[in-house]
C-alpha cells in the first residue's frame, strides 16, 4: 500500500481574515472552504467547472473552486459570498438581485452574485453583450437569466448614483 499523502498547511486571506488551512494538497478549494471553514455559501453544482455554482474570487479573479487544488491558493486573497456584504450593508449587486428577482431557488445565486460583482469590477458599465458574456460561465435553471441581467443593470445604476 502506498504511503498516505500528508496534509499541508496553506496560508491565505479569506474574506479579509488571515487563515491557515490544513488539507491534502490536491483537496478542492471548494471542499476546504465548505468543510474546514464552514463557509457553506459556496455550492457544488457539477464538480467539473461547468456550472459556476462554486465560483469564488481568488486575487480578484473569478474561479470555479471545484477545479482549484488548495495548494494553489497559498498566499492568495479569497472572497466568497459570505464576504460580499459589508456587515449588514448588502452590496449593490445583492440588493439588485433581491429587488429584480435575480434569485429564485438560490443555489446558483452565490456564484452568480460573485460573477456579477467581478464583472462590474472589471467593466463598470457593461453593455448587454458584456453582461451576457460576463455571466455565461454561471448556469441558472430557474430564471432564464432575464432578471439577473436586470439586476446587473440596476446595480450599475446604483453604483453610478453613489459615485
Amino acid at each position: 500500500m502506498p504511503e498516505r499523502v500528508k496534509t499541508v498547511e496553506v496560508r491565505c486571506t479569506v474574506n479579509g481574515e488571515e487563515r491557515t488551512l490544513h488539507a491534502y494538497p490536491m483537496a478542492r478549494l471548494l471542499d476546504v472552504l465548505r468543510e474546514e471553514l464552514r463557509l457553506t455559501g459556496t455550492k457544488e453544482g457539477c464538480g467539473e467547472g461547468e456550472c459556476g455554482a462554486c465560483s469564488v474570487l481568488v486575487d480578484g479573479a473569478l474561479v470555479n473552486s471545484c477545479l482549484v487544488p488548495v495548494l494553489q491558493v497559498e498566499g492568495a486573497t479569497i472572497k466568497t459570498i459570505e464576504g460580499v456584504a459589508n456587515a449588514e450593508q448588502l452590496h449593490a449587486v445583492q440588493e439588485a438581485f433581491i429587488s429584480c428577482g435575480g434569485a429564485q431557488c438560490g443555489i446558483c445565486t452565490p456564484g452568480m452574485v460573485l460573477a456579477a460583482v467581478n464583472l462590474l469590477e472589471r467593466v463598470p458599465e457593461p453593455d448587454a453583450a458584456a453582461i451576457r458574456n460576463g455571466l455565461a460561465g454561471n448556469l441558472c435553471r430557474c430564471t432564464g437569466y432575464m432578471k439577473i441581467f436586470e439586476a446587473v443593470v440596476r446595480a450599475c445604476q446604483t453604483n453610478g448614483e453613489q459615485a
Partner: protein
Amino acid sequence: MTDSLVGRPVPRKEGRRKVTGQSRYIDDMSFPEMLYGVTVRSPAPRGRIKHIAFTDDTIPWDEFTIVTAKDVPGANYVALILNDQPYLADEFVNHMEEAVVLLAHADKHLVEKARRSVVIEIEPLPAVFSLDDSVNRKEIIWGEDNVFKSFHVEKGNVDEVWAKADSIVEGEYRTGAQEQLYIENNGVIAVANMDEGVTVWGSMQCPYYVHKALLKLFNLPDDKVRVIQMETGGGFGGKEEYPSMIAGHAALLAWKAGKPVKIIYDRAEDMAATTKRHPSWTKHRTAVTRDGKLLGMEIDFVVDGGAYATLSAVVLSRGTIHAAGPYNCPNVRIKSRAVATNAPPHGAFRGFGAPQSIFALERHLNKVARAVGLTPEEFRRRNFIHEGDRTATGQVIREKVELDKLLDRAFELTDYHAKLERFAAENAASQKKKGIGFATFMHGAGFTGSGEKFLESVVGLEATAEGRVRVLAASTEIGQGTNTIFSQIAAEALGIDYELVEVSQPDTANVPNSGPTVASRTCMIVGKLVESAALGLKQTLLGRGLLAEKYSTEDFKRACAHYIEEHGALKTFSQYKAPPGIEWDDEKYQGDAYGAFAWAVYVAEVTFDPVTYETRVDDFVAVQEVGRVIHPVLAAGQIEGGVAQGIGYALYEQVVWQDGRMINNQMTNYIMPTAADIPPIRVFFEEQPYLYGPAGAKGIGELPMDGPAPAILNAIENAIGLSINHIPLLPESMLEEMEAAHA
C-alpha cells in the same frame, strides 16, 4: 389598512438569505457521527441477480454498513400509485440505474472506492430500449403488454367525419427525454432508530409523499416518521417523486447503522439515475372543411415511462387532456398509452406530459393550415375555443377566453406580419435565414379531474400574541416564490403588513398536508386555502368583538394578544372544497378536467445559419392570461425560466442513450442554455380574475414549458421551408434533415 399587496413586487421572503449565502440547503447540514451513504446500481439493463461480491481486500468491509433488499423492515416498494418500484432490487433488475446495494461509512472517499468494488453478477434477460419496441411488444418487460396505463377520450363521432372531410391531414411527431438539471442535486440526511422512528431532512417538493413512502418502507405509525424540507435548489418536478427513493435509502442505512446518514448525489449520478421528461410520439389524423374548420381529430399519444409505473399514468393523463389544445372541434378521439422500457423511470417535469402533446399539435396545425391554403394564423383564428364551447373531455369553458386578442397583442409586440414579409423578401439573398413562428395553447391548473377532491388539502394559519402570523402548509418553496405569495395572500386577506406574515418550514410534524408542490396548484389551489384560512382567522377576531370592521395593523396585534390571553392558541384551518359545478367522470374520462386553464400565445423569432446548422432564437414574446397576477416580478420570472427551459428542450438538450442509460450525464456534454444563448424573453400578462383563485389568480408554473418548442420549430419552418417534427433539434440533426430534404 394597507394598500393592496396583491400585484405588488414585495421583496422575496428568503431573498436576503439567498443573496448572502446564508440559506441552508441539505448539503450544508451535518450531524455528529454522520456517515456518508452511496448507492451501488445494476450493471445490466435487465436480468436476474445471481451474486453480489465485495471485492478488493484493501477495503475494511467490516467497517461498512451494508444494506440489501433483505434488510428492508417493511414493504420493499416506493409507495406512489402502483407500488411496483422496489427500493432495492431483490431478485430482478429492470434498468441500469436500479439500486441493489447501499453502503455507508464515515470516510466519504473510502465509501466511493468501496462502491466501485462491489461486483453484482447478473444473468441477463432481453431488454427493451425504445418506445417503438415496447409498443410492438418486441419483448414483454412489464405486465402482460408493456402498458402502464391507457386512456380513451371520445367526443362526438369521429368515425363519421372522414367521409365528410374536404381534407384529411396526417402527421407524426416525436419528442426526446429532457434532463431536469436543477443546479442542486438530490440529497437527504436521515436519522432512524427503533425508539425515535425515522426523520429525514432533504431537498424535495413533496414532504408528505416522502412521509407516505417511509411509513410503508418501515411499517411505522404516522407519528414515527417525520420529513423536513430544507431550502431546495430547484425542483421542476425532478424532486416530486424521486426524493422518496433517496430518503428511503438513507433511512435504511441509518436504521441499520444506528447513526445519521447523508446521501448527496453528484451531478453524474443525479443525471443518470433520477427522473427525466418522458420521451413521446404522437400521431395525428385531422379532418377539415374547405373553409378551414376542424371537423374531427384522431390523436394517438404514447409516452415512454421507463422501467416502473411511478407517475406515468398521471403524466399521460395531462398530456392526453392537453393533446387537442385550445380549439373547438366537434369530434375528437384521443387514445393514449404509457409504456415500459428498460430505462430509469421517467417522471414529473414541468408541464407533465402537456409539452409533448402540445408540441405535436402546434406543429401539426401548421401542416393542416397549409393543406387548406390558410396561414397558420388564420386557421387557428377560425378554430379557437370560446366561452361556452366544449373541450375534448366535454368541459364547458365557463370563463371568457380571448385567444384572438392574445394573438393580436403578441403579433403587435413582435411586429409579426411585417417580419413575415420582410423575412420572405430578404431570406433569398441572405446567407442566414430568418423566420418567425408561434404557438397557441392552454395549461390546466391543479390536479387533473377529481384529483383535488381526493387530496383534500389543508392549510393552517397561526397567530402569535405579538400579532405575527405563520402560514402552516406542506407546500414547498423551490424557487418559484411560495413563501412570498402565501405571505402576500395572507397579509392581504388579514389587512396587515406583509412583514408580519411568515411561512413555516415544511415539516410533517408541524404543518398539515396541503398536498404536493406540483401541477401549477400552489398559487391557485393552496393559495386559495391560505386566503380562506386568513379570512377565518380574521372572522374569529371580528366575531369575538376584538376587532372592528376597520382596523390597523396595531389593532390586529392587540386583538391577537387579547384572544390568546383569553382562549389560548389562535389557529385556523381551511380545507379544499371543489368550486361549484366541477364534475369529473374517471371512467369515461369526461367532464371538468381542470378548475381553470391559463391561455397563451408565444412567438419566437429565429436565425438559422446554413453553414453551422445552428439555430438561434433572436427574440421571444410570451403573452398569457393567468388570472390576476399576485407578484409581477415572480410571475414574470416563472415565465422567463420556463421559456428558457423550453428553448433548451427545442434546440440544445439531448439525452444520449445506450442500453437504457444516459451516457452524456455531465454538464460538459448535455448542454443547457447559458446567459449567452438566451434571447430577450419579453413577458406580458392579460389579467382576468378567476373567481375561485386567491385574489383572482390561476396557476402559472408549468404553462411556459408548453409553447416554446412548437413556436421555435414553426419559426424554423418559416425560415427555411422545412417541416421538422421532432425535438431536440441540434445542429447535427438539422444537417441530417437538410441532407435528407435535398437528397
